[in-house]
């Protein structure tokens, strides 16, 4: 088990100062089951990091640790340290609300609120104290433009979000997440329920959002990871097997298991 991890080699970041996300020796238990085993990884600012691995390997679990969504599950215990911007997010005095404001999330199944398109985006803004109509309007338009949805919905902002197509709903969820200006966006298989065209639009969007946000994405789609991510982490059975630049992981992985997985021999 003493396999040494390949040192992260981010593509365009200087890996000297502290990274934006520092995960150090993190283990997570569901009751007595150890779902994450001593994970250590550092993620840099304004890069897209893909978490890949077969189902049940712990990649979503690790993602959900980063905005403490696992707090909602009974019997979860986390060991190790997880820092964002140098602050331990599991420290006793951490305001989870503030953390989640700074670390947004997009889910696998698009989950717009059964409200109007406008109200979906306004929800988070109102939670965080934006009240003036003019400011709400401006921020909502900005978010919808940045999520490449504005042109499609500008004439029906006040009709139900549930009337949108699956891909539009997912982009609305992204608009909702970026409206409150997080620093990091976590995406849990955001395109797994979408058709290829809608998937392509979401992928374009992710590449666009990279300019402003740090993105961590869980995906089952190897091509997608290869297309959109700068760094890739491969997980297997709760362990981080390999982490490095996406090009290297896909073309010249150091580990046999990584190679088997990315080449489709198992998983």
């Amino acid at each position, binding site marked *: 088990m003493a396999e040494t991890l390949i040192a992260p080699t981010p593509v365009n970041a200087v890996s000297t100062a502290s990274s934006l996300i520092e995960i150090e020796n993190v283990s997570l238990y569901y009751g007595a089951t150890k779902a994450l085993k001593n994970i250590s990884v550092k993620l840099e600012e304004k890069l897209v990091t893909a978490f890949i691995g077969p189902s049940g390997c712990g990649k979503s679990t690790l993602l959900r640790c980063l905005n403490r969504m696992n707090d909602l599950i009974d019997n979860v215990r986390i060991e190790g340290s997880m820092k964002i911007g140098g602050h331990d997010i599991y420290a006793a005095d951490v305001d989870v609300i503030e953390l989640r404001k700074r670390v947004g999330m997009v889910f696998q199944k698009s*989950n717009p*609120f*059964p409200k*109007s398109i406008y109200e979906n985006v306004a929800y988070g803004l109102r*939670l965080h104290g934006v009240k003036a109509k003019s400011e709400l309007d401006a921020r909502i338009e900005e978010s919808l433009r940045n999520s490449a949805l504005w042109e499609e919905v500008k004439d029906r902002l006040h009709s*139900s979000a549930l009337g949108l197509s699956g891909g539009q709903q997912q982009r609305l*969820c992204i608009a909702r997440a970026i409206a*409150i200006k997080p620093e990091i966006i976590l995406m849990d298989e955001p395109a797994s329920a979408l058709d290829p065209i809608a998937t392509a639009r979401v992928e374009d969007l992710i590449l666009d959002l990279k300019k402003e946000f740090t993105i961590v994405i869980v995906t089952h789609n190897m091509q997608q990871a290869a297309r959109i991510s700068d760094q890739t982490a491969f997980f297997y059975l709760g362990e981080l097997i390999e982490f490095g630049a996406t090009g290297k992981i896909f073309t010249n992985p150091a580990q046999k298991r990584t190679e088997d997985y990315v080449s489709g021999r198992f998983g």
Partner: protein
Amino acid sequence: MNTLTPSEYLPENTSDTTRLTRNFRAEKFDFWSFFFSGLTGLATLFILGILATILLNIIVNGWGAISWHFVSTIPKKDFFDANTTGVLPMIVGTSFRVIVMTIFVIPVGVITAIYLTEYASHTSILTRIIRAAVNNLAGVPSIVFGLFGLGFFINFIGKNMDDLLHHPNAVWGQPALIWASLTLAVMTLPVVIVATEESLKAIPPGLREASLALGATKLETILKIVLPQALPGIMTGGILAVSRAAGEVAPILFTGVAYYMASLPAHLSDQFMDLGYHIFVLSTQSPNIEQTRPILYATVLVLLMLTFALNIVAILIRARVRKKLRALG
């Protein structure tokens, strides 16, 4: 000759051969299917027949005695006389107790259901005890609720209120509208809790997660996302509770209903007359059965119509809420 006949190339088992050549036509009449579809249909017809018989009987016999005078008159003490009697105090009393009950049972039931589904750990002993208690509460006979109301609300809470407020005579420590309503609220609590729980469970967990991930607190998520969605289900619980409570007599027997009152109930500490109890009185206490029969039927009809009316109002409101939820939110 190289051509084979079927008997040569098919297996020897002749029934297989016939099955292959049979052309999908039913071989024999399927008696059991016919029997069971007939049986279920008959059972349904039987139920409809009973319902129709009851309703028709009541409408045919009761309609003639219903008049504006009948529903708008406060009767004299001798309310068995078909020409002078009326049921206004009973209509007011029954409506009043059902409305007061709803005001109490909905918040308590909804809050309990929110605790059970949103806050409590689903595996904890406490949750299991609460759930078992709720289920058992639903199985308690209504007369037992009546005795509970007498012992707890009147003799314990009411008497102590009188002591604390220094009332020389019993004001709260006696049967009253409020105690009858509270007793009914306790009785219908399981209905509201179960209906609310079901509607809360039906809300996709993804909506809660989405709200929390945007930095909402649990309370904000419940108030702004979960409860608006659960509203139609909560109202269904309310409708069921109203239907159950409107016709109940046993729980109010010791806790607030009066045989006769000369005026309408005006205060929560007043006693009241009630349609269900009045039906009991008319059918057991009348000195002249023949003379009382039409007003008995009419009173039953009034009770039915009142229950329907309360239900229809609630159903209409629920339909509006649903439409609004579907359109926007």
